[in-house]
């Protein structure tokens, strides 16, 4: 007892167990739910789900969404949001379609155009959000409106692209080695994926590495976790946010081209509602809108989970259009409640 004005403070706290981080915990939940759902579908619904091609078709259908969702996850991890990606996809489709068919463009020029749209979008939206500090929701809402209007200004009607080299690329199928099934005639049909899937998988792997092992990736998490702290720790918060939004827009343009490659047409109604699908996939994949928590692998399985549930609904014979939407909504609801309960309980401990 040396000091007269001493402070009364807590005793030494014992070291705590290293628990699961929030990110990993949510990833595990997502993986578990996806597996349970898929296995249940294989066991109970049989036929269709047993074919490997069913799985690969899900990939073919959703390659673009996977890419969009990855971009969305990155923005969400930094604590932002981007609701312009859906209509951007439509804009990219329409621009590429017009370029290929009306302006005798090549595939290279179309890809160039798509990327240019992404880069421009990224620069403008990123600058306004990060350096002028305007709420991302409003900025990307304007971006969404802009792309929507621009699409019809470029061309108001839907049309299919006739360009031959594009058609060849669109129809390119890559067989999956060792996978396949026997069709009704008794012939062996190998399972295949489209080019877009390869792009999507490469992007998922690259982004996974980026988020886990690069300084920039960890800065995304830090900024999302606590912006002020990240600044005090010496992270350039504005640049980090700018890069997140820039990356998201560029990914949206790549996703837009992959979508274009899958559908082969331009239309103002393409990819409508994709921004919300991307957000839903990210959430199911364990990314939190509050920032700082999320995982690209989770996002990938988030997209696949959504797709699986839609397939299950249609193979149950519930054909009316509304069932699919209602089940998807129910699933988002379920996930949110699981996440909120798990995290609340964990934090209480």
């Amino acid at each position: 007892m040396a000091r007269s004005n001493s402070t009364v403070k807590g005793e030494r706290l014992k070291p705590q167990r290293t628990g699961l981080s929030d990110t990993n915990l949510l990833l595990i939940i997502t993986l578990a739910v996806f597996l349970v759902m898929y296995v249940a579908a294989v066991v109970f619904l049989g036929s269709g789900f047993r074919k490997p091609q069913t799985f690969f078709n899900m990939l073919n259908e959703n390659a673009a969404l996977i890419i969009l969702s990855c971009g969305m996850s990155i923005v969400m991890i930094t604590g932002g949001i981007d609701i312009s990606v859906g209509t951007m996809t439509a804009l990219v489709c329409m621009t590429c379609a017009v370029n290929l068919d009306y302006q005798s463009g090549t595939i290279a020029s179309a890809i160039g155009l798509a990327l240019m749209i992404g880069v421009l979008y990224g620069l403008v939206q990123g600058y306004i959000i990060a350096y002028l500090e305007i709420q991302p929701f409003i900025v990307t809402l304007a971006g969404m409106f802009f792309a929507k209007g621009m699409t019809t200004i470029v061309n108001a009607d839907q049309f299919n692209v006739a360009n031959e080299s594009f058609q060849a690329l669109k129809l390119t199928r890559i067989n999956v080695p060792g996978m396949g099934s026997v069709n009704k005639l008794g012939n062996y049909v190998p399972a295949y994926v489209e080019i877009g899937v390869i792009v999507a998988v490469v992007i998922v792997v690259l982004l996974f590495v980026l988020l886990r092992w690069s300084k920039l990736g960890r800065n995304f998490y830090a900024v999302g976790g606590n912006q002020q702290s990240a600044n005090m720790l010496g992270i350039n918060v504005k640049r980090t946010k700018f890069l997140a939004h820039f990356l998201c827009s560029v990914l949206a343009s790549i996703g837009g081209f992959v979508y274009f490659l899958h559908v082969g047409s331009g239309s103002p109604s393409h990819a409508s509602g994709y921004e919300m699908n991307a957000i839903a996939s990210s959430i199911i994949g364990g990314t939190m809108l509050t920032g700082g928590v999320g995982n690209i692998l989770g996002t990938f399985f988030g997209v696949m989970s959504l797709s699986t549930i839609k397939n299950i609904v249609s193979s149950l014979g519930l054909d009316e259009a509304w069932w699919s939407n209602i089940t998807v909504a129910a699933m988002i609801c379920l996930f949110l409640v699981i996440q909120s309960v798990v995290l609340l309980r964990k934090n209480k401990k």
Partner: protein
Amino acid sequence: MKAGRLEPREKQSKLRSLFRRQIFIPIAALLVLVIFNLITNPSFFAVKLDYNSAGNPVFTGNLVTILDNASELAILAIGMTLVTAASGGQDISVGAAIAIAGSVTLRVLCGDNARPETLQAPIIVAFLVCCVASMLFGAFNGTLVAYFKIQPMVATLILYTAGRSIAAWINNNTLPNISEPSFGYAGNFIPGIPVPTPILIAIACMIVIALVLKFTTLGLYTQAVGINPNSSRLNGINPAFIKFITYVILGLCVAVAGFIKVSRFSTINYSVVAKDIEMDAILAVALGGNALSGGKFNMAASILGAYVIQFLTTTLYAFNVDSSALPAYKAVVVIILVVLSAPTFQQKLTRLKKKPKMAAAAKEGN
């Protein structure tokens, strides 16, 4: 007076000008639009008294169109402002919820028959059922946000996804059509009154909310909860309930807007009705200068924001802009508005202005 502080009065006037600034943006935007329209077309604001097909006197003109069409948006902006203030997030399901509200109304009026000869229930009953249903859906959103602590945008994503499907399911995917003319009163004209009814309904809603804010503590509570829920709780407020109740109020706004929407056309198209209106409603709140992260709000500014949006739309139509290309122009205007009103941008501007002055001052000092 300590040396380190400025005169209180000087500080106060600065604050007052700040306070003014929030409502300043929507008003300035309105003024610019008015002047722009007056220059390009002096007769833009002319209001004429015409007779409609039923032989009733009605006012027509751009001004009437703007006020008429903005009614639903203005009503939604009321609820959206409260939700934003209390929960620091937005409800993106209002468009889908309007589809449900309209569908419920028609279901009650039509019963199982999509083309009823006579109405199956009084219109007022249909409206009340519609209110109850919408408030229930609002309560659903409110429960997720307030009690499960899910971020508002995510929580309302559920109803956003399912809402239009639920609306279709309520009427078995048929498109009911009501021939009874009195059903159209709410969305068009009441015989003998030349002002479109939606304008009157919107004014009524504004009066109600003004009275509520004046004679209850809703305003103080929502702001306190939005700024600091911990502190609010320790001062005896129930933050979860306040958040919950704002969603129910928004549900009521949705019911009124939905009822006007179906009354306008006497039918409904589930996938198109009130499409993207949630985005416009959020935009109205933001144009009113309210922080989308919650806390302090200015109701009048939000409502003005709704009229700015409609004014802009009508102006663009007057320039023969194609309706599907409209969003692109709207986006440009919105971005200009929010950038101009952003504090960071204003700081940058003042810094640019100040720089030469400061350099001069530094020279003198040395």
